[in-house]
């Protein structure tokens, strides 16, 4: 029954010895009420995702997915139908159009939930933060990732570039930014799940950034403030939500498994950085391949 915390056990030490168990008294069961029926009214899970709200957004988003972006998948069968996996993808477009499309596609085709891990900045925005959480978004915290992937065996999607991906200007399109500090590799190692890279083509052109207004971003306390081509075509308000009808293509790469013992506190930093760099290089090469094959931004 004892859980001696490191370095202090109740029975060691000086003075009176503490007995480990006391003269046993049967636990008293005089509870006046019968067990209550489950009073939960909504299906919001511990991450804030609600399958009910998700199914509504899926229904609303489906026409966009099918007819606007005309999403095409390659290698979808490489994503497991059960068990945890960490998907990583390149990230682009001022207000990224890739995350909802990837999540929608997998949920639709595989019928299992996808949790999108992103910058905690989302949580601070009223309404947006709540909606984001209800539709499967959660802050990219290593503890969250471990619980989600290891304990619950779910699918999670991260963008290792972070905000550096979507905030890059159009002139830098399809040039992968630094993959953070390789945190995603460490998370996958610890959770004992494979990393599945997904190459995304199309998101870059769906909302290309012409330039960024850093001063305004600072005043508004935003990670970045983009001025996009969409602002000029659709106007400054509609331009923040309306994407160009680009053809989106996703290519799922072979899952990368790490031959390490899961559950450790720390992993070799050099190994982590090497693996992250390899995944990044493979993703970059795949992007180049896909762009070589692409004939048109609009029709693929």
């Amino acid at each position, binding site marked *: 029954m004892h859980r001696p915390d490191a370095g202090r056990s109740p029975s060691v030490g000086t003075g009176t010895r503490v007995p480990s168990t006391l003269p046993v008294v049967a636990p008293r069961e005089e509870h006046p009420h019968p067990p209550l029926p489950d009073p939960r009214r909504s299906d919001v899970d511990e991450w804030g995702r609600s399958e009910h709200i998700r199914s509504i957004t899926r229904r609303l988003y489906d026409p966009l997915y099918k007819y606007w972006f005309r999403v095409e998948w390659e290698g979808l069968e490489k994503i497991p139908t059960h068990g945890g996996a960490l998907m990583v993808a390149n990230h682009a477009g001022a207000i990224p159009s890739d995350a909802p499309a990837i999540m929608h596609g997998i949920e639709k085709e595989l019928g299992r939930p996808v949790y999108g891990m992103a910058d905690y900045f989302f949580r*601070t925005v009223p309404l947006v933060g709540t909606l984001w959480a209800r539709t499967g978004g959660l802050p990219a915290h290593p*503890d969250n990732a471990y619980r989600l992937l290891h304990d619950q065996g779910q699918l999670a999607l991260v963008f290792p570039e972070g905000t550096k991906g979507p905030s890059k200007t159009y002139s830098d399109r399809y040039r992968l930014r630094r993959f953070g500090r390789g945190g995603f590799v460490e998370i996958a190692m610890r959770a004992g799940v494979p990393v599945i890279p997904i190459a995304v083509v199309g998101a870059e052109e769906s909302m290309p950034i012409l330039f960024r207004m850093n001063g305004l971003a600072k005043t508004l306390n935003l990670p970045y403030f983009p001025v996009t081509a969409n602002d000029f075509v659709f106007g400054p308000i509609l331009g923040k939500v309306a994407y160009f009808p680009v053809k989106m293509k996703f290519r799922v790469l072979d899952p990368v498994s790490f031959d390490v013992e899961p559950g450790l506190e720390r992993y070799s930093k050099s190994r982590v950085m090497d693996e992250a760099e390899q995944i990044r290089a493979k993703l970059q090469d795949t992007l180049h391949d896909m762009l070589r094959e692409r004939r048109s931004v609009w029709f693929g």
Partner: protein
Amino acid sequence: MGRRVLVTGLDTFWGGRMAQALEADPSVEMILGLGTGEPRVPLERTEFVRADQTYSILNRIVRVTQVDTIVHTFLKTNSVGISGRMLHEINVIGTLNLLAAAGAPGSSVRQVVVKSSTHIYGASEKDPMWFREETRRNAPVRTRLESSLIEVEALVRDFIVDNPHLVVSVLRFANVLGTDIVTPISIGLRRRLLPCIAGFDPLVQFVEEDDVVRSLEFVTHQRIPGTFNVAGAGKLPWSEVASIAGARLFPLSPISTHSLAAPFRWVGLIQVPVEMESVMRFGRGVDTTRLIDAGFNYRYTSAGAVESFTRANNLRRAVGGSDPAYRYEQDVEQFFRHSPAVVRGSES
């Protein structure tokens, strides 16, 4: 020999409930309750001593009564209607005196149980969805309540280092709801008005008041050292708390929440402890695996705690009023406990 237990805050909800629970435990020989006011619940055999809030008298009491266990329930865990200075006096100085008495040379104390709060973790957008006991807090310390709790636990940590032979148990409780407890949230729900921050619907946890007392009793009885989170299983959105309890949400402005809500607080329409404002924005979850692994069984989930409150509230609404108030009569209590005229054990 049975155990001799000192309970602080006998005149508060938790002290009273804890003393009642200990009275039912035959392995507890003597219960001594310390309070700044008179007990508010009927007690059979608990001895009551009046003390000032900072417990400066405690050292002497511990020496003469030879208590082996101190259950420290007298920590303020919500800041409504109490000044920052008073919070500091009660929480920090009170604990300081208590630990000084417990750790005095030749002290008879073998276990100290502290009733802390999950407010010690704060709440911010950078938090993990589940705090483990060793997870660091991310939020800057902005409220007096949180800073006092942090100080209290720092005192306890030092105490553990200085007194390695003592069993020290710290329980961090999530927000409590239940049949009887009165908190700013329960007051709001009774009026069918739950303040929220517009645009935010965070996930929160609750612990039922019975589980609070039971867990305190559990670590006391089993002498389990360590720090433990205590909260009902699962989480629920803030809006669902309102819907289970049949209350309406009262949205507050997401910007300058505190100052714009001030008029509503002044007229007494709502009560929002300042330390709850960040929770109402980002929510908070604590991982309770450690206490469950130690062998504790919860009776209520988080949503169950809300339901328990709601049912008690429905009953109150139907039959009106509240339970007849108990009044402590010194002479009567003294008579029942100590008069030779009373045949002990004749009542039960």
